[in-house]
């Protein structure tokens, strides 16, 4: 895309190469037989769908995680990054990451140490400039929160 086109340049804030790469080549996108946790997130506004499937260790760490679903580049890339980022982490830590990510896409200031923990999710920071798309970025994370709270409830 021509760099002289300013309006397209603003789009680079949201459509970073990392995002488009995760959208075109989603990681861990597969059905999981017999998961410990399953949760489906659906955004009726745009029809985005994310289904997370998780196997936990006995110490409540994310042993394996995969997702299926369909939707826009933002929701699907966010899901793909989520699966890579939280694998091996304790569910408590995943909730901390989820909260940090919420702050990031809402445009709140975030410390360098926290930013490190967010890894590739930082590429979704620009979503804060596109308010109607914040829900897309958060969909996989809301789905994760649902999965974990359902687990606690049971």
């Amino acid at each position: 895309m021509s760099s002289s086109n300013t309006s397209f340049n603003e789009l680079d804030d949201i459509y970073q190469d990392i995002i488009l790469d995760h959208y075109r080549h989603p990681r861990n996108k597969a059905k999981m037989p017999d998961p410990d946790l399953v949760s489906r997130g659906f955004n009726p506004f745009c029809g985005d769908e994310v289904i997370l499937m998780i196997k936990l260790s006995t110490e409540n760490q994310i042993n394996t995680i995969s997702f299926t679903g369909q939707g826009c580049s933002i929701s699907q890339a966010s899901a793909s990054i989520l699966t890579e980022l939280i694998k091996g982490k304790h569910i408590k830590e995943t909730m901390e990451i989820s909260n940090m990510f919420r702050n990031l896409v809402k445009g709140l200031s975030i410390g360098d140490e926290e930013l490190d923990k967010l890894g590739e999710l930082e590429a979704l920071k620009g979503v804060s400039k596109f308010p109607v798309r914040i829900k897309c970025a958060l969909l996989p994370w809301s789905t994760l929160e649902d999965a974990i709270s359902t687990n606690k409830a049971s």
Partner: protein
Amino acid sequence: MLNPKEIRKDFPILDLQVYGKPLVYLDNAATSQKPNQVIDTLTTYYRNYNSNVHRGVHSLSIKATELYESAREKIAKFINAQSDSLIYTKGTTDAINLVAHSWGVNNIQAGDEILLTEMEHHSNLVPWQILAKRNGATLKFIPVTESGMLDLSQLNTLLTSKTKLVAITQMSNALGTINPVKEICKQGHAAGAYILIDGAQSVPHMPVDVEDMDCDFLAFSSHKMLGPTGIGCLYIKKSILETMDPVNHGGDMVKEVTLNHATWNDLPIRFEAGTPNIADAIAFGTAIDYLTDLGMDQVQAYEEHLTRYALDVVKGLSENFIFYGPPNPAERGAIISFHCPEIHPHDIGTILDREGIAIRAGHHCAMPLVNGRLGLPATARASFYVYNTEHEVDVLAASLKTTLQYFNR
């Protein structure tokens, strides 16, 4: 042929810039823009005539009542109806719900069938789902073909002696398909059914004549036809209207009230309890004047011309984009619904927005059609009106090309 460049002068919002680009407003199936005449009617009313209608003896109230009722007459004439068969509602959704809650509750019985189509907007589907559950009726659906048209070959078998109501859109909001409602009314009536037409998309874009069509109910909205939001109309055939009970009760809809009893006012006021949406009804009348001056034959001819042009232009994009709806521009309204396997409709919508182009992306409140029948999570939809130009179609097509380049960089 209508001259959109002249028409545009009446619409101040079309001079806006979005992200430094001229606004290209292609979301008319969601809501249309408003001409100065309509905007001025609203301010003139509040500055000069604001008053409550029907019961006042003072000059302002008399004037407000006169304007409110003369708007009803204009709207009725627009669809070739009598004004006492036309009820003001909040819009199409409210109108269809009124039919379901009043006529439907009392006339749809256990074992009855309601015949709908797979292409209905949720507002002409969900009220019937609720009614069918409540009264023990069954919903049946006329299927949609690959090209987005109704498969009427099955109409004869779908219409049975149990069919009490056929509720069908005249123009699909998702695909633009124009359905042969006159023929469906004929066959439906022959089977003993009543017919409701969802005119939300058709009444703004083509001549609609309730006498000629012979429907029993017709619902439509002001805001999709140059008028304000929050006002619409329900036409009901007089012989049916006279048998119907009001749904809302209170002021204005009553004639005599004692502590334990009330009698109903005349038609159609008995269906308009409470202080109505006076200003918006009057401004709806102004929108009707505007469209009447253009001529609905002319409106339809221009939109068919623009659709033909658009379908021709987008042929150049067919390698990457799939376009839905009837291939023949004469069988569809000015709605172009499309999908790109490489880019989700919401990403297309966000990128086009930065080019000043307003389209809609989603299921268009027709999930059974878009998600079910077409098997898509969403489509992108460009929808046109009298002020859209061939140049805007060109801008859309060019921007879709740059969107593709940008996304596949």
